[in-house]
């Protein structure tokens, strides 16, 4: 199963990162954690693609407007990358930078969510007598 590969890779990468944090070049530990994170995501790529295809198919069958589904996927993408960056910055000890990255990700997500909120309000108002 793939989970064993991923956990093995994560353990090896964090073990090497701990060693390198003590050595003369601690910044390479950060490089290794970035590479480990990226490799784990790239390993999970085809599974995520399959889930997205299923969701799109369900949305088409349920005649849900494609725009809403696209916005949801965009929000998931922004949340993932924002989380990835914030976590790497926090591991490197830069808590302030990490919170700024999360702040920016939240703003971007709100900007994406505004059209949907507008649509919901319209339908609610139309339902009222």
């Amino acid at each position, binding site marked *: 199963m793939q989970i064993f590969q991923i956990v093995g890779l994560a353990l090896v990468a964090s073990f*090497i990162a701990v060693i390198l944090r003590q050595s003369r070049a601690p910044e*390479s530990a950060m490089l290794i954690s970035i*590479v480990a994170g*990226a490799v784990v995501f790239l390993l999970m*790529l085809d599974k*995520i693609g399959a889930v997205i295809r299923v969701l799109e198919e369900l949305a088409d069958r349920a005649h849900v407007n494609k725009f809403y589904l*696209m916005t949801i*996927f965009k929000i*998931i*993408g922004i949340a993932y990358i924002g989380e990835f960056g914030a976590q790497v910055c926090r591991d490197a000890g830069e808590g302030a930078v990490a919170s700024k990255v999360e702040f920016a990700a939240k703003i971007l997500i709100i900007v994406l969510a505004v059209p949907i909120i507008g649509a919901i309000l319209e339908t609610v108002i139309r339902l009222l007598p």
Partner: protein
Amino acid sequence: MGEGVNLIFRIAGLAIVVSILFTFLKQAGRDEYAYMTLLVGLAIGLLWVIPVILELFETVRSLFQLY
């Protein structure tokens, strides 16, 4: 999967070589060369890591249609 792991080991090897060189040059009294090897090691590490980050971002962009 394989190239991810061997990239991690390559960076680890580079960092160990750089730290050994750093200590060696410091003992030999050449501090400026020591710090230069640190920078060169860091630059090479970045050179290897940045394409992986770029591939991650491109994949997320294409997967979640984040244009």
